């Protein structure tokens, strides 16, 4: 809410606080000030400000309340006038083009001088002729042959509103010669009102908080006035069908009112508070809503009379009929349902209760009598209607958060008083007040000990009562016990333990969070949970980073079409269930991902042209709906993606090669080794996303945990990627981390020398290196410590369909130096077994 601080001063004396200090007080009670817009008032002194200031100030020697004594025609221009103006010091001729002065042109000396806001030469103010708010400085110049150096200001030029059709005509009692800032200088605080503080979406509400926080007195608005008209009795009636939805309905009546603009100070306040002034009737309802927080609605009484035919206008509140239509005063026709509360009369709907009036019974320029509604509505019902009809208003904002019914009556009286002051007429004696469901204002009992035990403070029972009293709780203190009755302007205080928590918030907030001491946790350490999984996941991330991979965090939201790109175009995508989003921001992100490989491919695509080498991983969930279960399974997955150059090119030249399958495998092996997973196997495999000849499934024992390989060229073609082949792996995390071990065997570092020898064997192409290695280990027994493949060769002399695999074998015994004899015995056995089991021959 936008709070003009001159208005605030009506209810609390804040003269000892500068804007900065006031904003701080407000922020520290929960009224966060987001911006301070200066509309005349000077910037507070001091170098450091904790708030954002906009707008500008009106120096006392530049901006003055002045009076125009005569409006004269311009000799050379019809659309300009010359004003004989007195600024309290001297008489000046001021040039202006304001249309609202034309009517005084050539009338000679004015009987009642016009009071205006006058800016002297050298003043800096907003340029009225430019869009937006741009500062400009008044300089001496000639306009159509007449010298001009100062200005009579419009609202736009002073920053009050965007209006600059005419100049401001101040109220008659404005004192000529007074610095303008002293007369109406202001600052507007943009206050973010918390959802549970709708009581503070009003000037009085905020004043109450400030008064409580500063120990000042709250001055309630004066609602005393004389109702001079005939009694309201018999002029109208109220019928409430459901008190649950409409606990109170109050009506007041004023007749003979003159539809006219409100006094200038009222219009200025409304403008500053962000509401457009309309006329004295509408302005009075808006003014009281802003002042008190009670939205009001004015009906044209004569229209209601007409609608009632010969009867008494009777207001009936009830829920709509399904399909019933109502056009609100913003011109929108709404289709209603049976949950929506309406204000109707015997002829039909008048307004959408608590939200917006209907077009038909609206106050208009011919209105002479006003029937004024002040009511109270069920906030949940209003919320539902607002969300269903996608409609909003200042009234709905407040009623959908809960306005105390006590305010309905006060609001109507205050508003009638203001209508009378600003538009004349007679206020009918009395009100019609139908109050079937008064709320019970909760009484909360709490002990000072409980308060201090929860806050960690030592506040006395008396001080607690004082704090609550400053917020208008009625308090009684008996020993340690405080009994507090909730004041009749708030609905969010409960009873019992919740009520105590509610009051704890009030006490701590007003006492001041900064006065509550800081303390380290003084609680027993809870039983420690064992969660190896989290530690392992962290370990895995470190491992992958150490293997040269960059971590990603991808969007969870995607679409089935996006994910289908991970398959070749002709592939029949299986019909998979997604967690689908009812209200996605775009169809592109309308479901939770099922495939982490898809995310990886998309990110590889995004980065494809940005780096010559990409090596990435992501650990995150995929979402699989489960039949008969409300929540989906969130399965943790690991993806790895690699493409581009093996090494980053450098000035040292040499053509770096592209990454290949074995780079990916190196990473996967490094990861398995780092996790101390034994028994990992890689088996040639097929997968729709991968190249049929360059794909392996990854197994731990017989448990298939993932797949890796070269991304299928047809899949790659679905993404916009550079030429180099793309390698990827997709691995389920849970089995990986379960197979990993934090307790593993460490082999003794050999103390006896090892024997190294090379062995090259010729085998058929169908024999894998892994098979040869396995046989070697079988033949070599314990003494064969290590087998490492170092060369693969294919050539004519080996014969068609054969290849040569060259291994380096390391023999070693833990307890003695191996003899030649021992080694050759093993070697012979290896050679024999290779021949016998794989048909392998030694390469000569």
């Amino acid at each position, binding site marked *: 809410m936008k709070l003009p601080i001159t208005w605030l001063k009506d209810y609390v004396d804040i003269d000892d606080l500068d804007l900065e200090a006031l904003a701080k007080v407000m922020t520290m009670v929960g009224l966060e000030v*987001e911006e301070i817009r200066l509309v005349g008032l000077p910037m507070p002194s001091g170098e450091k400000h904790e708030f954002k200031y906009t707008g500008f100030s009106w120096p006392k020697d530049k901006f003055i309340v002045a009076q125009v004594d005569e409006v004269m025609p311009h000799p050379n221009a019809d659309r300009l006038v010359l004003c004989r103006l007195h600024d309290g010091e001297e008489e000046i001729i001021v040039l202006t083009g304001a249309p609202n002065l034309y009517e005084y042109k050539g009338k000679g000396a004015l009987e009642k001088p016009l009071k205006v806001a006058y800016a002297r030469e050298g003043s800096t103010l907003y340029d009225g002729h430019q869009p937006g708010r741009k500062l400009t400085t008044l300089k001496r110049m000639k306009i159509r042959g007449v010298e001009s150096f100062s200005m009579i200001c419009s609202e736009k030029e002073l920053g009050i509103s965007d209006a600059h059709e005419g100049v401001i005509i101040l109220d008659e009692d404005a004192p000529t010669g007074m610095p303008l800032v002293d007369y109406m200088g202001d600052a507007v605080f943009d206050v973010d009102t918390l959802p549970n503080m709708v009581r503070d979406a009003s000037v009085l509400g905020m004043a109450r908080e400030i008064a409580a926080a500063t120990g000042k007195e709250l001055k309630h608005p004066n609602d005393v006035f004389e109702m001079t008209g005939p009694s309201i009795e018999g002029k109208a009636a109220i019928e409430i069908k459901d008190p649950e939805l409409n606990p109170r309905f109050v009506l007041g009546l004023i007749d003979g009112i003159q539809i006219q603009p409100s006094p200038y100070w009222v219009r200025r306040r409304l403008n500053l508070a962000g509401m457009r002034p309309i006329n004295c009737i509408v302005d009075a309802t808006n003014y009281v809503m802003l002042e008190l927080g009670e939205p009001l609605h004015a009906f044209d009484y004569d229209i209601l009379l007409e609608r009632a035919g010969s009867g008494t206008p009777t207001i009936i509140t009830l829920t709509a009929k399904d399909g019933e239509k109502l056009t609100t005063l913003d011109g929108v026709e709404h289709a209603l349902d049976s949950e929506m509360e309406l204000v109707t009369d015997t002829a039909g709907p008048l307004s959408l209760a608590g939200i917006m009036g209907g077009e038909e019974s609206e106050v208009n320029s011919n209105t002479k009598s006003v029937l004024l509604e002040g009511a109270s509505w069920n906030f949940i019902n209003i919320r539902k209607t607002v969300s269903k009809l996608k409609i909003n208003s200042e009234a709905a904002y407040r009623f959908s958060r809960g306005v105390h019914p006590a305010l309905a009556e006060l609001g109507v009286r205050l508003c009638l008083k203001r209508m009378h002051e600003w538009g004349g007429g007679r206020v009918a004696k009395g009100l019609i007040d139908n109050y079937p469901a008064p709320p019970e204002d909760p009484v909360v009992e709490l002990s000072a000990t409980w308060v201090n035990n929860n806050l960690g403070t030592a506040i006395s029972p008396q001080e607690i009562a004082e704090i609550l009293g400053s917020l208008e709780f009625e308090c009684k203190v008996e020993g340690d016990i405080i009994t507090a009755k909730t004041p009749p302007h708030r609905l969010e205080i409960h009873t019992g333990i919740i009520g105590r928590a509610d009051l704890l*918030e009030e006490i701590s907030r007003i006492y001041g969070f900064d006065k509550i001491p800081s303390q380290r946790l003084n609680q027993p350490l809870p039983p420690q949970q064992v969660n190896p999984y989290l530690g392992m996941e962290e370990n895995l991330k470190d491992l992958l980073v150490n293997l040269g991979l960059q971590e990603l965090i991808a969007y969870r939201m995607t679409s089935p079409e996006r994910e289908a790109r991970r398959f070749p175009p002709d592939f029949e995508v299986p019909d998979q269930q997604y967690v689908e989003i009812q209200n996605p*921001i775009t169809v592109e992100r309308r479901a939770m991902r099922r495939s982490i490989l898809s995310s990886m491919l998309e990110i590889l695509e995004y980065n494809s042209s940005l780096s010559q080498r990409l090596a990435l991983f992501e650990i995150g969930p995929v979402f699989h709906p489960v039949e008969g279960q409300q*929540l989906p399974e969130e399965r943790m997955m690991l993806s790895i993606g690699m493409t581009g150059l093996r090494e980053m090119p450098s000035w040292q030249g040499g053509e770096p090669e592209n990454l290949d399958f074995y780079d990916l495998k190196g990473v996967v092996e490094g990861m398995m080794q780092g996790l101390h997973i034994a028994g990992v196997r890689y088996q040639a495999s097929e997968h729709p996303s991968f190249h049929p000849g360059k794909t392996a499934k990854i197994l731990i024992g017989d448990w298939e945990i993932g797949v890796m390989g070269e991304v299928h060229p047809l899949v790659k073609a679905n993404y916009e990627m550079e030429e180099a082949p793309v390698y990827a792996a997709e691995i389920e995390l849970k089995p990986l981390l379960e197979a990993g071990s934090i307790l593993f065997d460490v082999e003794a570092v050999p103390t006896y020398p090892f024997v190294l020898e090379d062995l090259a064997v010729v085998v058929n192409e169908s024999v894998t290196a892994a098979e040869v290695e396995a046989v070697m280990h079988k033949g070599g027994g314990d003494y064969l410590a290590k087998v490492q493949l170092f060369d693969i060769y294919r050539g004519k002399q080996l014969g068609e369909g054969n290849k040569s695999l060259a291994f380096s074998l390391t023999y070693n015994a833990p307890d003695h130096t191996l003899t030649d004899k021992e080694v050759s015995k093993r070697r012979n056995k290896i050679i024999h077994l290779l021949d016998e089991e794989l048909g392998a021959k030694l390469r000569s």
Partner: protein
Amino acid sequence: MADKEAALKNLEKIKADALAVLEDIANQESLEAWRVSHLGRSSPVMGVFSSMGTLDKDLRPLMGKAANEVRQALETAFEEKRQLMEAQALKKALETEQLDVTLPGRPIAHGRLHPLTQVLRRITRIFGDMGFQVYPSPEVETDDYNFTYLNMPPYHPARDMWDTFYTKTEGVLLRTHTSPGQIRVMRDRAPEPIRAILPGATMRYEQLSARSEIEFAQVEVLVIGENVTFAELKGTLEDFARRLFGEDARTRLRPSHFPFTEPSAEMDVGCFVCGGEGCPVCKETGWLEILGCGMVHPVVLEYGGYDPEKFSGFAAGMGIDRSTLMRYRIDDIRHFRNNDIRFLRQF
């Protein structure tokens, strides 16, 4: 005797000739050639040894000794020359071999943790030191856990604070905050005391822009015990802020509203961009909002399985993306999930 004299003289000559040649040698090849011709098998001095048989028996020992001395002298001279030449060569090499040390090093292909992971780890470590343990919790949640159990029954005004993605399954949504995890931990641990942190992804219905994201990371902090105070909330979070933002970090607690805590507060930290002077990052206030917190609401305690008459607690929730964004003055929040490699590599 003449033989002896001649032979000794010959030896002397051999030595003198060889040393004279050695003196002038200036490169490795000549030195090696010298070694072959003056100490090799067919060198003059070796010739003396091989012709020893033709000498008188009496002369042999004497000549042998003399020849040996010559050979040793030549070997010593050779060794000295070799060392001298090596030293000279090294000296020359050191003088001439100069790298351009400003040339870039060979690029090493490296990876890094995602910036959000890095920040999250710092946060979990700090709380870990204070005895907090990490709990996982689901990202797709029920309406009950996300709202109702957190004291926001259907149509509660506070539900407006979160723009929610609903799924097509009745009562299931994408969690808008990590707070539903509070209930899950409580239901898991009641009636034991709790010190937990719950990190994770959260989702909110926003229009994607440089300033607003639909997915972001949060951390939830929860303490439950028999006499947990607001003072402890303050002390714990102040310690946390100092450890995360530095010893000099100023903090303040400001009243706020969350339906699941009461009293509720927001913690601001002195702007680390401008040092509190005011800048666009802190919207000229000198303060940056880093977390929301408060005493756990009795309704929430009850839903979690704790008797609010007996137990109390505090909770805090903090957005990782936003604070990381501010910390590194990142211009666009979407960088975190677009995973532009040029962005990620900088962390």
